[in-house]
Structures are given as structure tokens and as C-alpha cells.
């Protein structure tokens, strides 16, 4: 997933490469939208991802995971452009806020599974978009795109254990955001109120 090859220019290979890459456009655009939270920025990010992918197409090995390769390019561009550089493997993983939430072990903070189906799609998207970027991107890769931990780790350039811990915290936070929303909007009542 390291972009080191010389720029390429074999026309026939180029056309089939572009076809294969373009087949992932909708997926990539949705990912860009979740990352940037802005349609214009998402379009720019996707366009630049494809330009860079074409330029470095020789570093892509045919038959391997094109979607993962494109996501890796897009994700790196996103951090370079919008966040002022790629993240170090940082403090978020030890974020005490979530550690605290983990230790609460409060049964009333756990929604029934079917409550989620009563929450509108845009509220779920909004909750995902509220996650810190490092957590949001792992949810995108694993939950939305169905990447294995190994592929997600390659895209993000981190060990598999980091993918697992970020994913765990991201899901805990999502659970809390959605449950808070469900309570605020009256979809569920807190168990104390109901008791």
C-alpha cells in the first residue's frame, strides 16, 4: 500500500485500470462524504484520489484489493489536506472518556437491539459523523465497507490490535450517541423513568 512506483503510462493497461477504479466511485464518494462531512470537499477529495491513483497505478498489483488501495490513497490525502498531516498513533486510543464509559457498566445505558431500527437513517449517519476521525475511519472501513481487520490495518498503516481497540471504542461511543438520541427523541424512555 506504499506509493513508491514511477508514474505510469501504458495506455491499454491504463484503460482497464481506470475502468476497475471507476467501479468503486460511489463507494469512495460515500466514504469521502463521511470523512469530510461536506459534499464539495468530498468531490475534491475523490477527484484527487483518482488522479493520484492513476499516477501511481504501477504500484497497484492487479488482482489485489483495489478498493482497499483506493481507500488508502484517499485516507492519506484526507489527513494531509484537511487535518494538516497524518495522525500519529495517539492518545485517542487511551481516551479516558470511553474508558470511563466502559467502566460504568450501567445496564440502563444499553439499548434494546431493536431500538436501533426505529432511529432514522440520517440520525445514524449524524452519529457516525460525530465520531473523532480516527474512530470514524475505522467504522467506515470495517462496519460500512466490510474490510477485514487485516485490510483495515493496511489501509490505516497501524497494527491489527490498534484497529480492534479503535473499533471497540468507536462502537461504544456510537452506542452511547444513538441511545442518548433515542432517549432525547422519546424513542425510548430511561429505565428509571419507566420504573
Amino acid at each position, binding site marked *: 500500500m506504499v506509493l513508491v512506483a514511477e508514474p505510469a503510462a501504458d495506455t491499454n493497461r491504463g484503460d482497464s485500470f481506470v475502468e476497475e477504479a471507476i467501479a468503486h466511485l460511489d463507494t469512495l464518494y460515500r466514504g469521502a462524504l463521511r470523512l469530510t462531512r461536506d459534499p464539495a470537499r468530498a468531490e475534491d477529495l475523490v477527484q484527487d484520489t483518482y488522479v493520484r491513483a492513476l499516477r501511481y497505478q504501477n504500484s497497484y498489483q492487479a488482482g489485489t484489493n483495489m478498493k482497499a488501495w483506493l481507500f488508502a490513497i484517499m485516507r492519506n490525502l484526507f489527513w494531509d489536506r484537511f487535518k494538516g498531516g497524518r495522525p500519529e498513533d495517539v492518545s485517542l486510543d487511551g481516551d479516558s472518556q470511553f474508558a470511563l464509559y466502559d467502566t460504568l457498566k450501567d445496564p440502563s445505558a444499553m439499548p434494546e437491539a431493536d431500538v436501533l431500527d426505529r432511529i432514522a437513517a440520517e440520525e445514524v449517519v449524524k452519529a457516525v459523523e460525530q465520531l473523532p476521525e480516527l474512530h470514524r475511519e475505522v467504522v467506515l472501513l470495517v462496519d*460500512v465497507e466490510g474490510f477485514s481487520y487485516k485490510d483495515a490495518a493496511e489501509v490505516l498503516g497501524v497494527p491489527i490490535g490498534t484497529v480492534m481497540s479503535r473499533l471497540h471504542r468507536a462502537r461504544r461511543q456510537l452506542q452511547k450517541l444513538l441511545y442518548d438520541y433515542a432517549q432525547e427523541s422519546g424513542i425510548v424512555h430511561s429505565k428509571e423513568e419507566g420504573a
Partner: protein
Amino acid sequence: MNCTDCLERLDQYVDRELTDEELDQVRRHLADCPPCEDLFRLKMNMRRVVKVCCDQGVAPEALRSRLRQILY
């Protein structure tokens, strides 16, 4: 397998990242433990709902044509 072991592996279970042996151990624990089974259902449902909700919409047609012009 006790509840702590099960909860530690629940994300991997949901994501099909366990070995066959571990998978079987978690499955047997869930069958006997309603609280862990509840949490498992919640995690499965959450993953499904997040996918369904975030996987909607297509790229704007203008972007698609612009890319075709740039890339070919």
C-alpha cells in the same frame, strides 16, 4: 468460557475474525448466557444499521463525467 472472556471476543465474533475453535466457544457461551446474548444482538444490529444507513447515495453525475474526462 466465562462472560469476561466472551465479552473480550464479542467484537471479533461479530466481525468473523475468530478461529473456528474460538468461534465455537463463544457460540456455546452465548447459547447459555442471556445477558451476553443480548449484547451480541445489540452489536450485530448496530453493525447492520450503521452499514445500511451509511451505504446510501451515489456520486454526483458531474463528478463521474469530470473523472472520465480527466482519467481517459
